[in-house]
């Protein structure tokens, strides 16, 4: 964690935005490592893929489209900012005073709702990965909401910087700039990635289906899948990548993903359960839960992958 703090300060001081972005990626990676230490393997997975992967790529793309140097600013406002931050920090520290000590197994947090999941999810849902059970079933509605958040973001990015009639014009050079140029000409990269990309995509599929048992699930899979494509586009050619998955297809997948998730919920309604009640999907509640989670995770994966790809290509299609 000390390492993260160092990175944090470095980010605050550095003016070269390129370096800042790289450090942010590093920051996320460190956080991911930390999550593993703290037993949150699923989260670590996602953080690594999202924080270190997608966010960084997007930021780099933005920098290529804007400028990579921060102007030296006047220091007038930052004193107040510092005061505000210190005050907020002190309030937070004050708040920690009544917190249970780190890792204390007797803390209230571990004794109200959480034990139920740990004890009952085995019988009620039958999946070893409790995180997946909670994510997709107990708090499946949150996850639905979150899928819609990413859907909103994808459509939002399309609306803000997308070309209204995209998909027709193919001649736009993408602009991850020099990075892109040098990568494209590098033979080792090209060959290496050609080998790597199918592996990544396969791995994504594995993560998708494996989420029920070990760490993994729709998010992680979706992000990894998207990463594979983005890598391909970076190294080879944006237009080629685009032809492989045209905008219309991404959008279709995007919509299909959210509709799949919502549809599973509505199916619960038709079969006499509440919204998002998977138990009624099959004769046996547990297998119903299985089926529900499987479908829902697939919806998540689809949406996330399509959203990420869509966002990336929208950025990539910008003209300088």
């Amino acid at each position, binding site marked *: *964690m000390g390492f993260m703090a160092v990175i944090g300060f470095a980010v605050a001081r550095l003016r070269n935005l390129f370096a800042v972005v790289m450090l942010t990626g590093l*920051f996320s990676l460190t956080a991911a490592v930390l999550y593993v230490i703290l*037993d949150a*393997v699923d989260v670590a997975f996602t953080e690594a893929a*999202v924080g270190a992967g997608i966010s960084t790529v997007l930021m780099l793309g933005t920098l290529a489209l804007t400028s990579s140097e921060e102007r030296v600013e006047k220091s007038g406002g930052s004193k107040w900012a510092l005061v505000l931050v210190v005050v907020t920090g002190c309030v937070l520290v004050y708040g920690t005073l009544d917190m249970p000590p*780190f890792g204390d197994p007797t803390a209230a947090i571990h004794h109200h709702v959480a034990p139920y999941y740990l004890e009952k999810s085995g019988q009620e849902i039958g999946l070893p990965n409790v995180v997946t059970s909670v994510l997709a079933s107990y708090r499946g509605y949150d996850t639905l*909401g979150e899928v819609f958040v990413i859907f909103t973001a994808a459509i939002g*990015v399309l609306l803000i910087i997308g070309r209204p009639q995209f998909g027709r014009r193919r001649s736009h050079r993408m602009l991850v700039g020099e990075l892109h140029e040098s990568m494209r000409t590098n033979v080792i990269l090209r060959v290496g990635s050609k080998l790597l990309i199918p592996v990544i995509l396969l791995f994504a599929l594995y993560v998708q289906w494996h989420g029920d048992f070990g760490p993994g699930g729709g998010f992680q899979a979706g992000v990894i899948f998207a990463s594979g494509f983005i890598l391909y586009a970076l190294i080879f050619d944006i237009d080629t990548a685009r032809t492989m998955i045209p905008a219309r297809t991404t959008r279709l997948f995007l919509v299909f993903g959210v509709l799949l998730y919502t549809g599973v919920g509505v199916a619960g309604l038709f079969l006499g359960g509440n919204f998002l009640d998977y138990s009624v999907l099959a004769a046996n509640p547990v297998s119903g839960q299985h089926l529900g989670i499987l479908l829902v995770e697939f919806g998540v994966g689809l949406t996330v992958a399509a959203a990420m790809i869509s966002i990336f290509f929208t950025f990539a299609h910008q003209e300088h």
Partner: protein
Amino acid sequence: MELIGLINYWIVIVLMMTGFYIVIAHDNLVKKIVGLNIFQVSVFVFYITMAKVKGGTAPILAEGITTYSNPLPHVLILTAIVVGVATTALGLALVVRIRDAYGTIEDDDFENQDGEP
């Protein structure tokens, strides 16, 4: 001592505040979003920290293990990470458009160009 148990939280707070500082003190639009990212990631760390149970393992049910870390914060943070990246994407998209419209991504330049506060 009790306070030692809290040091973890304090470091997280320092991280959070670094991010927060970057957001409010810097004028560069991209850097603000970077700050936002750091701020949010630190909050995620805070959640994960509180989920940890000493001697516990990852909440994947297995034979012979009785102590698991708290799964709920993990779920919440999975959600929050996605929300975070969604926000980042939107923010960056806006930055790109702003750059198109104004030719700059420094916050205090806009007023000068629009001629009204």
